[in-house]
């Protein structure tokens, strides 16, 4: 977690954002992140992101669910307390399919959602800096990090050349912290 200085560029449409992102990547400016109000398809490619492995995690969680169910039920019926239901076999796999299926789905879903929250660093009570109040509404926001190699003015001028409708310089926490969204003291102290 670190307090950093950012140059913020605001775009009005995803069709302006795409070429802008391309330009930023070529320019050598350090791109902090891009914020959009809805999933913009192709943006992850344009930013050079790899596809997510979340579904592989889901598959592994699912396997854990399957083995938990089969292991637990077979332990109960074959070892811990074998019951004789009308002479039927103790190891009655077909009758275990429903519970095995349900636990597979349950483990996969719960595991994936928790992993999703962990990877995105979101949780009840987590706070992150919002660079533009309408970044969840209709604005597309690209944020550049300002370090010792660039001046504020350079970064702003560059952003303006990419078709922004609005720019600003903000000092903010780059990561997440515990806090409430109704309290602005920390940010206002940094940006008088």
């Amino acid at each position, binding site marked *: 977690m670190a307090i950093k200085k950012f140059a913020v560029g605001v775009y009005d449409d995803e069709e302006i954002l795409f070429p802008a992102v391309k330009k930023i990547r070529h320019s050598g400016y350090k791109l902090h992140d891009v914020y959009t*109000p809805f999933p913009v398809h192709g943006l992850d490619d344009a930013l050079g992101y790899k596809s997510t492995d979340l579904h592989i995690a889901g598959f592994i969680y699912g396997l854990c669910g399957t083995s938990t169910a089969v292991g637990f039920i077979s332990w109960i019926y074959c070892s811990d307390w074998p019951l004789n239901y009308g002479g039927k076999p103790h190891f009655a796999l077909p009758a275990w399919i429903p519970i095995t299926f349900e636990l597979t789905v349950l483990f*996969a879903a719960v595991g994936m959602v928790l992993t999703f929250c962990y990877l995105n*660093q979101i949780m*009840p009570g987590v706070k992150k800096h919002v660079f533009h109040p309408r970044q969840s509404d209709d604005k597309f926001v690209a944020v550049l990090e300002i370090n010792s190699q660039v001046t504020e003015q350079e970064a702003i001028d560059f952003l303006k050349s990419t078709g922004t409708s609005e720019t600003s310089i903000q000092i903010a926490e780059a990561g997440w912290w515990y806090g409430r969204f109704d309290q602005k003291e920390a940010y206002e102290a940094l940006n008088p």
Partner: protein
Amino acid sequence: MHIKYESFVREPLVDGSKDYHQISEDIVSPIERKPGRMWYVGFFFSLVLLLFGVFSVAWAVYWGLGTWGVNKTIGWGWDITNFVWWVGIGHAGTLISAILLLFRQGWRTGVNRAAEAMTIFAVMCAGQFPIFHMGRVWDGFFILPYPNTRGPLWPNLDSPLLWDVFAISTYFTVSLLFWYSGLIPDFALVRDRAKTKFRKMMYGFASFGWTGTAKNWQRQEALALVLAGLATPLVLSVHTIVSMDFATSVIPGWHTTIFPPYFVAGAVFSGFAMVNTLLVITRKILHLEEYITVGHLEAMNKVIVLTGSIVGIAYLTELFIAWYSGSWGEQAEFRWRIMGPYWWSYWAMMTCNVVSPQLFWVKKLRRNIPFTFVMSIVVNIGMWFERFVIIVTSLYRDWIPGSWAYYSPQWTEVGFYLGTFGLFFTCYFLFAKYFPVIAVSEIKFVLKTSGDNFKKKMEKIEQQSTEEFIHVVESHHEEEHEVHH
């Protein structure tokens, strides 16, 4: 960037001239306004029903299940009827959000949020019935397989009744997660728009600190897709397992192999009807007619006529098999269903479920909102009678004529049922007030392909010859190619 192209022959999913900001305004502003008088009236009426339900249940728990009308012959009455009815209703939401996502049905975006909320509330209502049917409800946790001092003695994991415990609790959990993972970005929108400190704090908490980075969205879409893939067989499994509660018992009228598909079709049928009931009112009161269009209602009416017909074929198949089986018990059972003391419930079921939905073959009626509303209620009355017919009229005349009996509900059972309506509508009213009832980010995502004003721009392209059109698409591809490298 949107290469996806939709002919204007397809109805727009969003009417009116909208831009991204207008969508946020339309959907979020009801949360920021004071609710109208109708909301207060409805909410307090639901709350009163809920309290009456709590009283009826408390009465039955205190005095015992002898206060219900169920007896030794008819051990399952209104309680299990209502349980199956509510679970069935709870199928539409996840079907709309999961199966229709996999089938890439664009129209689901307008209705999935409300339908999923409805699902979750319906499953909550359904769960009450088996729990209180246990009688000694304070021992209810005995159904869970946990190490205990009774042996440890485990529940019967080979029994459909226990499968149900797993199926319904899993279904509830997964639906809730699916619903909430879609809600997080929309809560962030409400948070960022919030003017009051309290609202900012509450929605800030509910939105988990979501900011919507490109990586966030990439993961969010991956999550939604996999959860949809998981939820699709899950939806089908839940009512399949509920039907096995009956089908694995050796009771004429229950012991049939068509039960799983027949129950699933019935569940979708009643679920879509309930979605229509709620959405016809919601769109009117919250002024969302441009997002939940007549086209949406028509699509759901088409599903209703399809599933209603499947259910109708299942009823006829049951009758045919009863005759064809040559089994005396099976034949007598179905004769009594049609002509016995409970004939009225059978004919109510037939009329409401099989005959009246056929009117939806007429396009004018499918697109008629008052008719849709009335029909959605008729369907759910029919589906209630279906469960009553299956449960009560299979049990009331068993193998020993000396123990034949008749069953009518007592006030405690009726109160319990009304109470679940109270629970359902209390939750729904709170949802309609405090939650974005339409998935805002998903609507924004489809706006440029399916919005009315954007579709109009396609008319020019639509006039082009194939040659010209291919050329346009190819140049688009090249542009994208450049962006990537």
